[in-house]
């Protein structure tokens, strides 16, 4: 059971798996020590089954894409799951026919060409199943073609622009399944071995035409497959395999380190260039900047042509990361691109050694954050709240503000940020306090994820929610209509969506914004972007404001001094921090 036309397919398959093997080995070898240690630790915990489950859910069923858009999910699923089932069912069909004997891979792939005498009941059923699966895949391909012509069909604003090589490969992928249908129909015309679809189509052909065209058609099918397989590892379609590897390592606790490693290369290759990151990006949606989105930034990094501006001109609002169906750690990848090693100096902040810690045993350490110094209302309200519940506190940056270091880290000054973290850590540890409350989500994320503090770190919304739950805070509700703005750093950054809403529901009438929660729109003043002009920031702010006030609230609440400052001049509506609203509703 061999025919020379299968050679292109065989060459392609061997090349595919050979190259994947080489690439995977290289990436795994260049993981750093920290990542390998974590992998080993998790290895003993039996993460294997959950990892495989996740790989199946994402690789075949495309769960996260479906969550983003059902139509898009259907398209991806029909191609991935359909093709996978075609291979599996084809393999079973061939094995059943040979009664369990071993067979060559091309035998199952080109089964109908090799097996003509198919008149048993079971082979009829198999033929029909295979046809049904082929229709399933073809529907997916049809949708993909439609999407490339008009993204709106899939409910998208834009689709990503591909480079020529990827585009060529996409056409060869689209060609594979119609060719399969065509060749199987021709064989069905000659030997009557088709399923409901291929037989129907086969009967339409002239047998003379079929006998001439059969071999060329199968050869074309084999060449299309072989070409696609051989070129796949160098194209976007490599993501099909890399994504599985990435999910596996992620399930074993591996994360991005401070420097780029083999894991970074996996993430770069796991990007499918689907363009979902463009969809909600405020830089594109509001400002029309369509060159900096992760799909293009990662492409440039991959091709080693990334410009500094592509890495820099991003708000770091994390919208793309929250939408990304592959779950790529885009912020970390962008931080690698922003690394300013040549400017990053040591011992810059020796002047901070002058500050002495305060013995705050039994007190809460309150860290307002730099921005809260510009919104004194938040600090005043927090002090009122502490006093109302009789909690003693030490405000760490009452007179002079020390930065948490996150703004520096976001701009790629790794050493300088680490120095600030060391200074603050010393102050906090020497205070002997057990709880740190901060008003600024930027500081909060830094304290929580970048510091390794032996104290409990809370954002003030969490702290107030806790006080309310314990019944310590006596408040009087009012019927004010309030919309809540989720700050990027607090919501998508730290996953705090519920606490602020719980606090607000106790006090006022919460009205929804158009997009909120994990889809909330950045206020535009995010510290992540240094290149934006004030005018662009204001346009972003206005878009975000419009999104917030769609239901005409009396007041807008936020939980970030930066967002408050941004919205303050957007309109006559008052903008308040949650702490201020709570302080106003306190029963004295």
């Amino acid at each position, binding site marked *: 059971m061999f025919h020379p036309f299968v050679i292109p397919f065989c060459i392609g398959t061997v090349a595919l798996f050979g190259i994947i093997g080489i690439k995977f080995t290289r990436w795994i070898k260049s993981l750093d020590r920290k990542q390998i240690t974590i992998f080993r630790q998790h290895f003993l915990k039996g993460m294997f089954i959950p990892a495989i489950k996740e790989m199946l859910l994402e690789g075949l069923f495309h769960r996260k894409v479906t969550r983003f858009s059902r139509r898009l999910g259907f398209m991806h699923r029909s191609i991935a799951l359909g093709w996978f089932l075609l291979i599996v069912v084809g393999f079973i069909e061939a094995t059943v026919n040979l009664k369990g004997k071993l067979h060559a891979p091309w035998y199952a792939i080109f089964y109908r060409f090799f097996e003509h005498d198919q008149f048993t009941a079971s082979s009829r059923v198999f033929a029909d199943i295979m046809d049904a699966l082929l229709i399933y895949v073809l529907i997916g391909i049809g949708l993909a073609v439609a999407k490339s012509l008009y993204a709106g069909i899939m409910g998208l604003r834009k689709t990503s622009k591909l480079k020529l090589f990827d585009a060529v490969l996409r056409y060869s992928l689209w060609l594979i399944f119609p060719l399969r249908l065509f060749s199987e129909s021709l064989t069905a015309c000659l030997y009557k071995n088709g399923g409901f679809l291929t037989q129907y189509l086969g009967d339409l052909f002239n047998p003379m035409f079929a006998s001439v065209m059969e071999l060329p058609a199968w050869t074309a099918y084999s060449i299309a497959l072989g070409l696609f397989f051989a070129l796949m590892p160098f194209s976007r379609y490599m993501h099909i395999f890399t994504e599985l590897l990435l999910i596996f390592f992620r399930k074993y606790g591996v994360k991005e380190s401070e420097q780029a490693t083999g894991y970074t290369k996996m993430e770069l290759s796991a990007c499918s260039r689907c363009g979902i990151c463009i969809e909600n990006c405020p830089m594109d949606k509001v400002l029309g900047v369509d060159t900096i989105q992760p799909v293009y930034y990662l492409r440039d990094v991959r091709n080693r042509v990334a410009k500094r501006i592509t890495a820099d001109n991003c708000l770091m609002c994390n919208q793309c990361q929250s939408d990304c169906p592959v779950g790529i750690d885009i912020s970390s990848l962008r931080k690698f691109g922003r690394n300013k090693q040549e400017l990053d100096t040591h011992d810059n902040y020796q002047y901070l050694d002058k500050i002495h810690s305060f013995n705050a045993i039994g007190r809460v350490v309150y860290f307002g954050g730099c*921005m809260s110094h510009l919104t004194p209302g938040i600090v005043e309200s927090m002090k009122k709240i502490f006093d109302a519940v009789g909690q003693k506190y030490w405000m760490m940056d009452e007179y002079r*503000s020390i930065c948490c270091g996150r*703004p520096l880290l976001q701009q790629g000054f790794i050493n300088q940020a680490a120095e600030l973290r060391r200074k603050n850590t010393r102050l906090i540890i020497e205070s002997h306090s057990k709880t740190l409350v901060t008003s600024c989500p930027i500081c909060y994320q830094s304290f929580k994820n970048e510091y390794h503090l032996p104290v409990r770190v809370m954002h003030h919304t969490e702290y107030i929610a806790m006080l309310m739950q314990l019944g310590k805070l006596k408040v009087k509700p009012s019927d004010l209509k309030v919309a809540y703005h989720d700050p990027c750093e607090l919501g998508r950054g730290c996953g705090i969506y519920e606490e602020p809403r719980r606090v607000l529901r106790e006090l006022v009438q919460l009205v929804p914004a158009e997009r909120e929660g994990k889809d909330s729109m950045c206020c535009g003043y995010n510290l992540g972007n*240094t290149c934006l002009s004030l005018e662009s920031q204001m346009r972003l702010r206005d878009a975000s404001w419009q999104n917030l006030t769609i239901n005409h609230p009396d007041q807008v609440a936020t939980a970030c001094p930066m967002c408050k400052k941004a919205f303050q001049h957007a309109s006559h509506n008052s903008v308040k921090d949650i702490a201020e609203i709570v302080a106003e509703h306190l029963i004295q």
Partner: protein
Amino acid sequence: MKSFGFSIAKPRSLEIDGESLERLHRLEEKEPSFKRCFNCGGCTATCSAGQFTDFNIRRVHNLYRWGRYQELGEELRKCMLCGKCTLVCPRGVNLRHLIVSMRELLNEL
């Protein structure tokens, strides 16, 4: 007598044309909003680093204009990039980007 921190600057000579002018243009190209500054000093008043040291963003501007890069390089290292200056600036000068750009340009020296 109470000291208010004022003093008379020592006599000095400045090389204000040639290289420093070209560098000024390059900075203005990188961050055009630099030109809008009207020296109100809001940035300096709010500066986090300025509360601990004599770091003074207005002075930073002048040092750059004067071409006193050596001194400027040392000054800029004190900045924590917290962004308060940018937020208070009444003319919308992007001071964070300005400081990073200055450091980049000085690094080329």
